[in-house]
């Protein structure tokens, strides 16, 4: 049973500007509002996931990308409909921008039979070919070689479609990432890798994950561009990714973008993260990506309190609908477990 796709803001018919996004770097008023909508939607979605987790309604663990919303939303916003997305566990915003519905995401988190994975896996671990979303597996870095393969297929088929994927500051050290960049750079594949440096890998501070200054310093080791940006600055994330997307689409090869953010919550919902200095959190709180874009758009007089209320109404209504829909949806029948190891 397929459920309604893309969660659209009022009146906004389409986020992506056509098949192979040619949207200019400067954002229109409408686009600013779309971005704001998805930032709020992401934040509120993850808040409700946490609430559901505390109520014991989530199967397994629950991860959020609080602090990472601008990176997830801004990067996916630079993609066109035909582009491929391989999001990580902090990138719920990317799922949403690429058009995934709240219902489908709720069903995934609650392991329901009508979820996209049919309850075989949870959270963002699903594939939705209709939206060209291919979720991660738990093994950090393991999806990136697959993303390289999709970028290769795109090139061989002359699709002009690009592939956007992500890895964390910890996961960046996994060998899969290196082999992927080696292959993608030599083949000049349309791959964009965003390194989400959110200061921690579970309990491990980034200082124990790297000896160089920036993760983007690794790009030169593959002869590809690498930049480091403030991952809480939505416009900057979008524009940086847009440039990388156009470069990839033009056949000029991969780009590595280090997006510096902060993991504002624990590693997962069960983690109190006592190991994170309160002062550090306080510092970063000032750069809360959702508040930043809200303030910007209010200053620009783009976001009126009327629109804001409208969006909030819509978001909370949609969330309520999705939660209820998921709760009302049954788990898969037990015997389903035995079915589908092989494709026919």
């Amino acid at each position, binding site marked *: 049973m397929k459920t309604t796709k893309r969660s659209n803001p009022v009146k906004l018919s389409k986020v992506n500007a056509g098949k192979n996004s040619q949207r200019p770097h400067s954002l229109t008023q409408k686009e600013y509002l779309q971005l704001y909508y998805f930032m709020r939607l992401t934040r509120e979605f993850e808040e409700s996931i946490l609430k559901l987790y505390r109520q014991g309604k989530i*199967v397994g663990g629950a991860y959020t990308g609080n602090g990472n919303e601008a990176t997830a939303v801004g990067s996916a916003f630079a993609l066109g409909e035909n582009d491929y997305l391989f999001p990580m566990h902090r990138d719920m915003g990317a799922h949403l921008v690429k058009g995934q519905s709240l219902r489908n995401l709720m069903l995934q988190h609650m392991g329901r039979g009508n979820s996209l994975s049919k309850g*075989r896996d949870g959270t963002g671990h699903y594939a939705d070919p209709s939206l060209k979303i291919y979720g991660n597996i738990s093994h950090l870095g393991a999806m990136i070689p697959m993303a390289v393969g999709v970028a290769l297929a795109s090139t061989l088929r002359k699709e002009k479609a690009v592939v956007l994927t992500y890895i964390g500051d910890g996961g960046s050290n996994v060998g899969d990432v290196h082999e992927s960049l080696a292959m993608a750079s030599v083949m000049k594949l349309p791959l964009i890798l965003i390194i989400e440096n959110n200061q921690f890998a579970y309990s491990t501070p980034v200082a124990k994950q790297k000896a160089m200054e920036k993760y983007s310093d690794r790009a030169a080791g593959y002869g590809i561009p690498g930049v480091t940006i403030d991952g809480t600055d939505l416009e900057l994330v979008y524009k940086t990714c847009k440039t990388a997307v156009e470069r990839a689409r033009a056949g000029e090869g991969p780009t590595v973008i280090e997006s510096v953010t902060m993991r504002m919550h624990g590693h997962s919902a069960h983690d109190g993260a006592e190991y994170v200095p309160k002062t550090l959190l306080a510092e970063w709180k000032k750069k809360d990506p959702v508040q930043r874009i809200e303030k910007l758009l209010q200053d620009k007089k783009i976001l009126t309190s009327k629109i804001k209320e409208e969006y909030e109404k819509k978001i909370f209504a949609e969330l309520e609908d999705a939660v209820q829909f998921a709760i009302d949806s049954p788990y898969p029948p037990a015997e389903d477990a035995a079915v589908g190891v092989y494709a026919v």
Partner: protein
Amino acid sequence: MAHITYIEAISKGLWEEMERDSSVFLLGEDIGPFGGAFKVTKGFLQHFGVNRVIDTVLAETAILGAATGAAVVGMRPIAEMQFADFVTTGFSQLVNNSASIHYRWHLPCPMVVRLPSGAGIHGGPFHSRNPEAWFFHQPGFKIVAPSTPYDAKGLIKAAIRDNNPVLYLEHKRLYRHIKGEVPETDYIVEIGKGDVKRSGNDISIITYGSMVHTALEAADVVQNENGVSVEVIDLRSLMPLDTELIFASVRKTGKVLIAHEDNITGGIGGEIAALISDQCFQYLDAPVKRIGAIDTPTPYSPTLEEFFLPNTKKVIAAVQELAAF
């Protein structure tokens, strides 16, 4: 004697061996200040210091390879995989380097890899792995899988003292659900020796790890409901196997159920069944039966995982079928 949990027993065993032998050290992800994802090494850093409790980069190939290298030059590293599933990320180091060091180089490789294993915690396909069969097939490893706090402590200590790469399977679901008596005094459980966890005369259940408890529950039920006397053999060591103990039990009962949580096909139950069918041919009164997870990845939904995993009800049914044979 202390009455402690399975996970406390592992911690105590590690602690005592680190006190005893300064060449023993720990390396892994988040094991230092944080004490590990499951808190097995909580407090170790404070007591043993940064040179004995080493937080590494997130890179299993580096962790397992570094442990192998350090072992070859005389240290006794204990590598923690945060979940057993992630050993696949460093698979090549173990099967190509660690396992064959002694055969090729004639040098000991005294290392332990701790593998928080098993399903039943809604971990889904990638946090539920029972990794034993892959390594069981690679000559050079020892593999242990304790089911009780006593065995958990005795086997981690034996593993650390062993001069070979030892894979230590600790079942996540047992961590805090199983308590038992554990001596404060120094002892080990010899690698390669199984244990009769319940003696009986009609049917032998050969099992290990979490399934030992499932088997014991089932044994009580069939005893009471069907008057069937079940012997439960806890292998404890998967490599080497205690074939003596297995065959002795089979010769006594003539009927065998092999039970493991891992997928059936290609699981070590097949090897055990083959050995029994070969070595105890004349003693078998019924075909050797096996029970385990169905042959799929570990599904995430509770209903699916329930169907996927072996459980007491399924073991009871299998035992009753055997009894009726």
